[in-house]
């Protein structure tokens, strides 16, 4: 049976596609070295449209209105610009209510996109462009440590990692935050209240790496302008030892937190990337592998949820679990030496 792989790995090749949400201009070329803050592609797009009912306003048939309309698709019009004017003694003029670009004309109507805003796509990670995707973005390759999480608030930033928790089950509170942390990415354990998330924002931190987040804080976390990545899940969960060890030993390094929202279909996950200098590209981490004795795994559900262990043995056939359910299972030796039996579907390989 194939196991999903949760990447917590000290050195690997990391290849990431960075794409604009809509078509735009790509600013990079193949082989180019990029830094996290480099704008690799940009575009402008609008979330608002204005539909001008020219025929209705001029009280003419749509086919006549079409002949009176003076603009065409692609025209950039200023606010109050003339769109159409009726003929006759008492002529009327239809004008644009706002500045915008004409995107459709016909049926006696004009559709404009207004409120254009510029979108800049940053590289997010330091690396080399290995593929340019025309009009959309690029693929960047780097080498370094990769720590994936389970939840992210959709933001991305880069900064120096500061460990402000002494143990994997530490709790971040407002009392732990001070001005010396401004501009840093904090390895911070659990957060139990909204005030702490807001205080971190006011302190201008560049990111939070949390072990667990209370579900009631999700709306607040989404609103924060800095990235928040959760490594283990929801509720009072300590950070899994593999992630904690790797992150805490990389304190003071420049890291990227891409707190991308988890998408089970595309495979996008929130992640921390710590780029490291290498002379030869290390191998890429595999995305799936067969369950086997000796593999390091993380427990997704009780017992021992979140703990790291090693597959001591794969049990033959179906195993009756303490719940009474029967499923393919394995014996797991946890880090504390305890042995537990877990269904394979509740395990993910760490690597």
């Amino acid at each position, binding site marked *: 049976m194939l196991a999903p792989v949760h990447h917590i790995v000290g050195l690997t090749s990391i290849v990431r596609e960075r794409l604009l949400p809509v078509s735009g201009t790509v600013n990079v070329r193949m082989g180019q070295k990029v830094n996290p803050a480099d704008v690799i592609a940009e575009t402008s797009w609008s979330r608002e449209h204005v539909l001008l009912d020219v025929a209705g306003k001029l009280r003419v048939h749509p086919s006549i209105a079409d002949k009176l309309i003076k603009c065409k698709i692609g025209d950039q019009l200023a606010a109050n610009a003339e769109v159409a004017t009726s003929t006759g003694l008492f002529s009327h003029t239809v004008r644009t209510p706002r500045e915008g670009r004409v995107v459709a004309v016909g049926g006696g109507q004009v559709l404009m996109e207004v409120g254009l805003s510029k979108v800049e796509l940053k590289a997010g990670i330091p690396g080399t462009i290995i593929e340019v995707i025309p009009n959309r973005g690029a693929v960047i390759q780097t080498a370094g440590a990769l720590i994936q999480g389970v939840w992210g608030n959709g933001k991305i930033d880069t900064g120096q990692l500061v460990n402000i928790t002494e143990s994997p089950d530490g709790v971040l509170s407002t009392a732990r935050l001070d001005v010396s942390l401004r501009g840093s990415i904090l390895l911070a354990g659990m957060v139990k209240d909204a005030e702490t998330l807001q205080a971190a924002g006011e302190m201008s931190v560049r990111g939070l790496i949390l072990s667990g987040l209370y*579900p009631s804080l999700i709306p607040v976390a989404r609103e924060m302008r800095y990235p928040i990545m959760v490594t283990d899940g929801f509720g009072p969960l300590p950070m899994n030892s593999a992630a904690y060890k790797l992150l805490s030993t990389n304190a003071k390094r420049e890291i990227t937190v891409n707190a991308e929202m988890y998408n089970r279909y595309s495979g996008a996950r929130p992640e921390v990337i710590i780029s490291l200098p290498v002379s030869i590209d290390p191998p890429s981490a595999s995305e799936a592998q067969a369950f086997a004795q000796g593999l390091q795994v993380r427990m997704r559900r009780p017992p021992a949820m979140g703990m790291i262990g090693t597959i001591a043995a794969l049990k033959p056939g179906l195993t009756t679990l303490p*719940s009474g359910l029967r499923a393919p299972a394995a014996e797991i030796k946890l880090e504390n030496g305890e042995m537990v039996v877990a269904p394979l579907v509740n395990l993910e390989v760490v690597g």
Partner: protein
Amino acid sequence: MPSSLVDGNSLLAVDVGAANTRAVLFDVVEGEYRFVASGVAPSTAEAPLKDVSEGARNAIANLETVIGRSLIDGSRNLITPAQANGSGVDALAVTISAGPTIKTAIVGLLKEVSLESARRLTASTYTRVVDTIGLNDLRKPDQQIDSILRLRPDLVVITGGTDGGASRSIQKLLEPIGLASFLLPEEKRPAVLYAGNQKMEEEVKSLVGSLAASLHFTPNVRPSLETEDLDPAEREMAHMVVEIRKRQLKGVDILSSWAGGHMLPTAYATGRMVRFLAKVYGSNKGILSVDIGASAAVISAGFKGSSTLNVYPQYGLGENLAELLNYTTLEDILRWSMFDISTGVLRDYLYQKSLHPSAIAATKEDLAISQAVARQSLFLAMQSARRDFPRNIANIKPTLTPLFEPILAGGSALSDASRPGLGLLLLLDSIQPVGVTTVILDQNNLLPLLGASAEQNNILPVQVMESGAFLSVGTVVSPVVSASFGSSILRARLTYENGTEARVELKYGGLETLPLPSGEVGKLTIQLLRGADIGFGPGRFPREPMNVAGGALGVVLDGRGRPINLPADAARRRELIKKWNWTLAGE
């Protein structure tokens, strides 16, 4: 397509679920079609594999080890037709429920008429209505355009206007759809189903046709104000859902090609079987199928001359679990738990489980939580589905679940229950059936696969249904009565085929069983007390004893009243739930 027994064609059926993919082989054994064996593997719609055909191949490989016969060749393709050496199968049918909920915009004229029909239509498959555009919509057309661009629906369902009726109003409603589709990148444009005024077909084609991912027409769901006909539109939408899945999920096209296009959404295939069963076996009672799994809760009911199919992705036990709290409270879920579990632990469970939908309960406490969640989800689904049941159906009280015979139960939460009694109790708590009904557990989740197979072989579903491939849990008697806790409400006597008897007295608030093994038939005599009603009127029971079929639990007498009123005191409630669990599941 051959369908007679003489041809004896084997048929492989594959169900691609959100969590698991099942491969089931049907073949002729001793002159009749039988369920032979099944293989299960984790579904692979999601990353890292992102290809549903991989999970299907794995499930088929597991089936191969059970039957000792090759079904997949060296190039990893299905061997079809069956070969002389015994490898391969003659046909394949596929059902699919995997994939993200289909974002749907509905367009119609009046809220209570065409938009209500559109809502019911979209409820027949794995959709979530993200936008509604109608005459009562106060937004301007450009705001409607912005809304569609922001929400990016996968599907737009347009209804409205009786045939030959309103056309100008519909035309106005179509404009924002056409313009928004025009602005979307081609690969993001929605599929459009038009099921409104049939006289508008040409105008719809000119306004939307070239701008939609695909444009489909079906007969008007509301040909007149008084008439609603959803069947043709449901059928068309089922095919559209498969097309949408082909766009969304890699590997769906491979399975569809192997199956020669015989692929249906799982819920639609279930609904088709229930409609068929209601036609063939229907009495004055309805036939009910309930299914709760990772992707959705599905309630399908067949009555004489009509049927309903309701799919509730929001009550699925997988990736949508965190959204369950939009529809219920933590306290309402926990009322079903036999353990003292805090609301915080439950909230964390819902969010954590939504991250890993395929994970299963390994501990007793995790099972108790998962079963409490499944109960409340199915309870909510049944409450919602009841609103769409026809008005003139058999019932004891209109406010209670109508009379059904039988009730078919499937889906991971019910069929994976460690003991049939646990599955039955979950069903009794959430569906709260009344009167006398047989409960059948679809342990191998065959019902949708039979529905999909019927397209190619119409004898197979009938013979498999009658072959004992389903587990009869037993006959359940649920009186409707008003009484005080602990007072006697019913005396039952079961006479076995060998002439021996078993008797039991049912008290209000309790559950009792009378053993009657599967395959046996007993004669049940009931004396109703305190005006209890099991469908023959208060205190009435037929003069002749009733023939009842045996099952894993025999005859189950549910004296907890309808609706079930759980004690407000948490400790007392948990004690009662433990007692009920002990009675039906022995734990």
